[in-house]
């Protein structure tokens, strides 16, 4: 079978799975799986850019996704003038002071000659800066957080349309990625993996604990949507009429309408990113990246600034994860920092990329859709399998109950098995690079 033929069949297969869900379960379920699948596909493209094109091992996807989510809150929620009056500006000032301290310390380390003097000077700058920062930061934070903590207590957002939060999420993630890349890729050996693993945890810790920023673990719910509300549609006589014309009841019609709306938005973003990634891959830029991947030392000797290119790819990939994160938070309609878990947002995305085919953008998309489908559907399938296995056992046999209770854990097991099977029998993934 020719490669394009095989790939088409693979995509058709995944589409078939989703359609099957539509018939067997419901179209709402099918569309929902597809929507999250599209978002996952975008994350997978981001990770694929980093791992597939440049061999950068980012195990902090979760952090960038979370930053995208933060962007939604900061961009689209309402302005809170009282919070700004109480201490918002003070917080900004404190953060600037903190940044200035770090910059000063770096300057000291560059300017002052090596020795005890430098160490002392750096320590003095850092410690002094830290206490100054805390002195400004703490009271202002308390002031902001004191304002109606049960429902607000944060600095709010800019009140802009939520779609603007998507590029903003990219920017935020890119900024963080730049800082991480600058440090981890700038170290004499590459320590990106542990750096991203750690930073992702720190980002989540900040999101959880800095209530003034986005309410911390108290969550922000009811974020604005780029699509209409189902209730409004159900109340809209024109819509109900049209739905009836298509033989649908208003509830089904409205829920489907909204989901299709999201699908269209997500698809547009995905296609744009896919196009951009493909164009880059097929150009001299892509050739350069392949050269760097093949032989870093030689590429460096041939005038390619390897560190800068790695940084570029890392920032871009992370920015894409940021967009995906913003889209996901938009779809959820809420930001819940507690929900960011490495298993789900880092390792699962990796499974998607590896299974799909690292280095191939279409592979990443396919892998994302397939794995997401399984992630959602393994649970009912697992339960069904367990029931089948245990159907012969007594109603209250301990083993039977245990097996049925364990069905939910089949999800992780299944992901592991799929990953290992693919790595074993088709190590380049379902759609290999070239």
């Amino acid at each position: 079978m020719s490669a394009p033929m095989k790939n088409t069949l693979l995509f058709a297969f995944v589409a078939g799975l989703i359609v099957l869900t539509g018939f067997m379960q419901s179209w709402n379920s099918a569309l929902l799986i597809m929507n999250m699948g599209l978002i996952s596909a975008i994350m997978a493209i981001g990770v694929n850019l980093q791992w597939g094109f440049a061999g950068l091992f980012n195990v902090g996807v979760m952090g960038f996704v979370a930053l995208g989510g933060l962007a939604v809150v900061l961009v689209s929620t309402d302005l809170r003038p009282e919070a700004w009056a109480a201490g918002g500006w003070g917080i900004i000032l404190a953060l600037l002071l903190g940044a200035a301290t770090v910059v000063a310390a770096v300057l000291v380390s560059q300017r002052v000659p090596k020795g005890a003097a430098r160490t002392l000077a750096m320590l003095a700058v850092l410690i002094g800066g830290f206490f100054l920062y805390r002195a400004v930061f703490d009271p202002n934070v308390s002031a902001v957080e004191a304002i109606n903590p049960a429902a607000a207590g944060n600095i709010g957002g800019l009140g802009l349309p939520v779609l603007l939060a998507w590029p903003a999420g990219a920017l935020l993630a890119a900024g963080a990625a730049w800082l991480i890349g600058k440090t981890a890729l700038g170290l004499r050996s590459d320590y990106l993996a542990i750096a991203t693993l750690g930073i992702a945890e720190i980002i989540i810790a900040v999101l959880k604990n800095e209530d003034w920023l986005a309410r911390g673990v108290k969550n922000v719910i009811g974020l604005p949507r780029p699509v209409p509300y189902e209730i409004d549609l159900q109340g809209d006589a024109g819509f109900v009429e049209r739905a009836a014309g298509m033989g649908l009841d208003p509830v089904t019609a409205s829920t489907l309408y909204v989901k299709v709306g999201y699908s269209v938005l997500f698809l547009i973003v995905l296609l744009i990113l896919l196009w951009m990634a493909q164009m880059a891959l097929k150009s001299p830029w892509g050739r350069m990246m392949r050269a760097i991947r093949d032989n870093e030392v030689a590429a460096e000797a041939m005038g390619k600034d390897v560190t800068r290119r790695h940084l570029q790819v890392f920032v871009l990939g992370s920015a894409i994860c940021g967009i995906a994160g913003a889209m996901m938070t938009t779809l959820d309609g809420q930001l819940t920092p507690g929900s960011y878990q490495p298993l789900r947002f880092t390792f699962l995305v990796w499974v998607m990329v590896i299974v799909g085919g690292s280095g191939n953008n279409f592979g990443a998309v396919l892998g994302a859709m397939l794995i997401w489908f399984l992630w959602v559907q393994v649970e009912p399938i697992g339960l069904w399998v367990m029931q089948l296995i245990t159907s012969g056992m007594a109603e209250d046999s301990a083993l039977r109950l245990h097996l049925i209770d364990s069905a939910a854990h089949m999800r992780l097991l299944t992901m592991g098995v799929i990953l290992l099977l693919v790595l074993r029998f088709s190590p380049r993934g379902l759609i290999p690079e070239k």
Partner: protein
Amino acid sequence: MSDSDNPYQDGRGNKDRSITNTHGVGTMTPAHRKSGATSRVEGGPFLIGDTMTGGYGKGPDILHECTVAVDPGEIAVIVGPNGAGKSTAMKAIFGMLDVRSGSVRLDGEDITQLSPQDRVTKGMGFVPQTSNIFTSMTVEENLEMGAFIRRDDITGTMEQVYELFPILKEKRHQPAGELSGGQRQQVAVGRALMTQPKVLMLDEPTAGVSPIVMDELFDRIIEVSRTGLPILMVEQNARQALEIADKGYVLVQGRNAYTGTGKELLADPEVRKSFLGG
């Protein structure tokens, strides 16, 4: 090469120190992990790779009916252009390569089906071309590792090695990685001698060493050979090597192109022109 063909070896250029360790990664794949049967064969040279044909993994044949042999007290030298299959022939003899037809015989025994470890036990010593010492271990530990398969007292052999390479005794407690190039080569040969091999195989022992070290190494090799140990070696410094060789093989594209004594090959104008640089 194999890098891009084997999907499992596609690391995508990742060099992340926090997850992978590239130090000392192996490249050799034994043809037989578990030894098969051996059989006795009468006569023939002490060590012979006889009409060997074979290649790496499932790849194409690299050796085509290639024969190399060595007898006690002899130095046999293999020369030939790059990629001719010289190192491959050595590996085939050592069991790192599937010999699809032909055989390897040592001291009247067919060892074609043996795993490399068992060939070591049978008395074969091999010094690869590069990374041929344990850099993080001391000189003494390197020698001990050479005698890994031996269960008897090794102090005597170690003394012999120190006698042969006095500098090593001086540096016995130093990590071998801190030695100079020439000294490293001595450690490498010493390590191989620790097995008390019945035959010694060297792959380009002088590549990249300065003339003075090269001379010294050749001196040592001659000395070792005079103890009666057969030596099979690959050399690119073909002229010097052939000068000390009792037997020379010229390999071209995996086939024996010329065979003769060192002197004969040196004298052959065709060989001189094509392989010795005029």
